[in-house]
């Protein structure tokens, strides 16, 4: 059997390659991968479209059309009986509308006797021109009798036309702004008297029925009060509760009950906290409706589980060797926690707190129930005064019919998102900067 060589063996024909469907399987693989990409694209595209439409609708809210007019503070109109020295209310009740109208007539060169043309001036300037002129006089009564350049707000309709947001091909009868007014607007704009200015009113005004004089000032103050209350209450109570649960609590039924409760509260719908606030704080304890104190406490209860969960994770991440070292040097357990563990866990706690605050800042539903959907035009001086909040103001503008309110609303959303983004970025930076790997 030694003479046999490999060459002499009969070579079997190669069997045909079995079709194990490899092509099909690779196609399925590619399809599957495509589904994943499609899912991510869908989410990101939706995000992008949402942000782009909101910014597109809202960025114009940061500019507002103003008309600069040489206003003659005619003593014959402001104080026809010359009593202002003895009766200061004269200056408050004076006919400032007429001053504004006369200034506009003079600027546009209309014949004051042409009643029909003069009537068309109505709705060109904002109704708040009166208030603006009154403030000028109140600041400096010596202005009476002089002619001063004053920048007055144009009405919301003129503002929309000037920003090019109104379809001018619509027949004049179905438009709020008439052709004559548009002509005036163009001539004033060519003159430089009518121009867009940065809209400081958006940040300072309160609620108003006129879009051009409504702003988020009151809402910002209300939100600020609530954030301060949430920060103090939720941070203090949250950290205290986490320290107890993480460092001191014995393993028993009560501790288990507390933990189950915290986990469940984290998942309770936010509107239920609003019902709690309404029933307990307003109805039972008799706290004032619409006040930021009630909103702040309600939001604190809502944020508490978030902060507790984050704080416990931060405390648990501090290695036991630190604790042993402190105890070994003779510190009491309380000293060990407050002098060593807590400072080391602080960055993590702050990150969790900022994220909880951001959630509370954007929360709307519970605030609707405790009466923060209120028309508040005056700034609240204390947390016990009626107030509103930024997201609630956005919600209220969403229910307004006028187009100019949609612009304001989108502008307010941009501001809210900027706040939230700033908070989240701070949280990320804090985490990056102070995070320690043990």
């Amino acid at each position, binding site marked *: 059997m030694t003479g046999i060589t490999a060459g002499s063996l009969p070579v079997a024909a190669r069997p045909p390659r079995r079709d194990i469907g490899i092509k099909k399987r690779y196609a399925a693989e590619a399809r599957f991968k495509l589904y994943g990409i499609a899912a991510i694209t869908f*989410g990101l595209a939706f995000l992008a479209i*949402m942000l782009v439409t909101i910014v597109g609708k809202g960025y114009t809210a940061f500019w507002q059309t103003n008309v600069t007019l040489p206003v003659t503070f005619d003593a014959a109109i402001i104080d026809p009986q010359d009593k202002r020295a003895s009766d200061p209310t004269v200056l408050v009740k004076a006919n400032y509308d007429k001053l504004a109208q006369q200034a506009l007539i003079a600027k546009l060169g209309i014949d004051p006797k042409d009643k029909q043309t003069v009537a068309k001036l109505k709705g060109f300037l904002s109704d708040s021109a009166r208030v603006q002129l009154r403030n000028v006089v109140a600041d400096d009564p010596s202005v009476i009798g002089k002619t001063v350049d004053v920048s007055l707000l144009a009405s919301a309709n003129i503002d929309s036309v000037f920003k090019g947001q109104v379809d001018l091909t619509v027949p004049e009868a179905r438009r709020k702004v008439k052709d004559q007014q548009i002509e005036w607007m163009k001539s004033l704009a060519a003159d430089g008297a009518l121009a867009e200015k940065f809209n400081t009113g958006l940040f300072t005004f309160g609620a108003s029925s006129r879009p051009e004089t409504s702003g988020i000032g009151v809402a910002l103050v209300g939100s600020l009060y609530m954030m301060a209350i949430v920060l103090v209450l939720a941070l203090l109570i949250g950290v205290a509760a986490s320290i107890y649960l993480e460092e001191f609590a014995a393993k028993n039924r009560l501790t288990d009950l507390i933990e189950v409760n915290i986990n469940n509260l984290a998942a309770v719908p936010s*509107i239920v906290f609003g019902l709690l606030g309404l*029933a307990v704080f307003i109805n039972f304890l008799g706290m004032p409706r619409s006040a930021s104190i009630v909103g702040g406490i309600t939001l604190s209860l809502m944020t508490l589980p978030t902060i507790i969960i984050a704080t416990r994770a931060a405390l648990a991440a501090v290695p036991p060797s630190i604790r042993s070292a402190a105890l070994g040097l003779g510190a009491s357990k309380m000293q060990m926690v407050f002098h060593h563990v807590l400072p080391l866990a602080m960055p993590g706690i702050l990150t969790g707190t900022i994220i909880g605050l951001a959630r509370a800042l954007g929360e709307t539903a519970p605030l609707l129930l405790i009466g923060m959907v209120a028309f508040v035009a005056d700034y609240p001086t204390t947390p016990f005064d009626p107030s509103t909040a930024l997201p609630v103001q956005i919600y209220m503008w969403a229910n307004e019919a006028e187009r100019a309110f949609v612009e304001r609303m989108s502008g307010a959303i941009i501001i809210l998102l900027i706040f939230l983004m700033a908070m989240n970025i701070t949280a990320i930076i804090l985490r990056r900067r102070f995070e320690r790997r043990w």
Partner: protein
Amino acid sequence: MSGFLVFLLVLAIGLAAFFIGRARALGADTGGQKPHSRAHYHGWWAFLLATGPALALLILWSIGANSYLHSQIAERVAAQSSENLGTTVGLVRSLAAGLNHLDDPAHPPATMEALNAILADKGVTLATNTQDYMIPLALEANATKSRLGWIGGIATFILSVLGGLYGLSQIAVRARARHKVERVMLGSLFAASTLAIVTTIGIVLSMLFQTITFFEQVSPTSFFFGTVWDPRFAAAGSGGSEGQFGLIPLLAGTLYIAFVALLVAVPVGLMSAVYMSEYASRPVRSVVKPALELLAGIPTIVYGIFALVTLGPWLRDLSAALTGGGSPFIQAQSIFTAGLVMGVMLIPVVSSLSDDIINAVPQAMRDGSLGLGATRSETIRKVILPAALPGIVGAVLLTASRAIGETMIVVLAAGVAANLTANPFEAMTTITVKIVNQLTGDLEFNSPQTLVAFALGITLFFVTLAMNIFALAIVRKYREQYE
């Protein structure tokens, strides 16, 4: 004396006790015996004794004085008027608060007409049904209130000083001040942690009482099984129980919208989690993951407004164009719009939950499958997903409970009409929308129109609670499998 002023005073006394105590403890340590506690613990103990009991007294006194005042006013009011007692007492109390804004609070004008004119100048407006006979009552209430305030304030002050002195008298070199202070600290830490239980009890009880009152006026069967939601108006003082409060249309709308939202969120969220953990390269992941998480950081009101202002009208116009310029078959506010937007909001919830679950599947199972020649997608579909299935079911349940409790999106995008329909392009309403509707505006707290919101709230609370507990149990059980 106002409560806040007393509080500041007590705090000042406490701080004084702290500094005196610390100084005395430092002085007592003459270098002979080793002191038991460091000096500031003695200071803190004096602070606690000065403030703790005094503030407790102040709080109890305020609550007691308030209810005493209330009963006194109620007694007087009942003698003069037969109107709704609670409302009238409220009127008298706000009148009393308003009087304090006057330049001369003790001598207001005798009629409301004259009073309102003065108060309007001060920027105070009272309810229009405040009547003349209430002015003397309000005056009397203010006098009683100020008397009670003074008594309470002085008692608190005395208690605070006594407490501080007692604390200071205990200072000695071997006094165990640190133990005492730490015991108080531990007590407050424990109290803080029980707040979670208190909140839960508060939620349940507050809603339960209102719900029981509601069920006294409307039978539970007609609430839970009624198919018509038509609460009518909560006219002030009517108190009538006409109107129908059927839960079924609201529950159906809630579940329908949540279902549509899950149809969007679960496949998209799950697929993006799978892609992120199994396919994406590191640079892609580091960009795309935070971007997707941005979706979770956007407040729900923004989603709602996007649906209301942009997406809803666009879908309506699109459907009109599809029918060739006919009537649109998608309404601007519809189940589909609300569900779609809510689904997008929930994508990051699903994807972060499933990310955790997918990562918990042991690497050995992945390696085994790939080693046998399976492609990546086969490994995912036939090995990883089945192994992660219980966890994913839990994640879906958690997401569903979020969808059911979501408020702002449906308030703005789903509509307010309580329909029972199977057409996803029509408007339907939800439990949360109706809670908001019934509780915004002027409230009459004992009408069924208002109380029904609490019955809805407690239903919502228990439905979501049950789902959460069930989901957490599944997730936990599953997690233990591989540990």
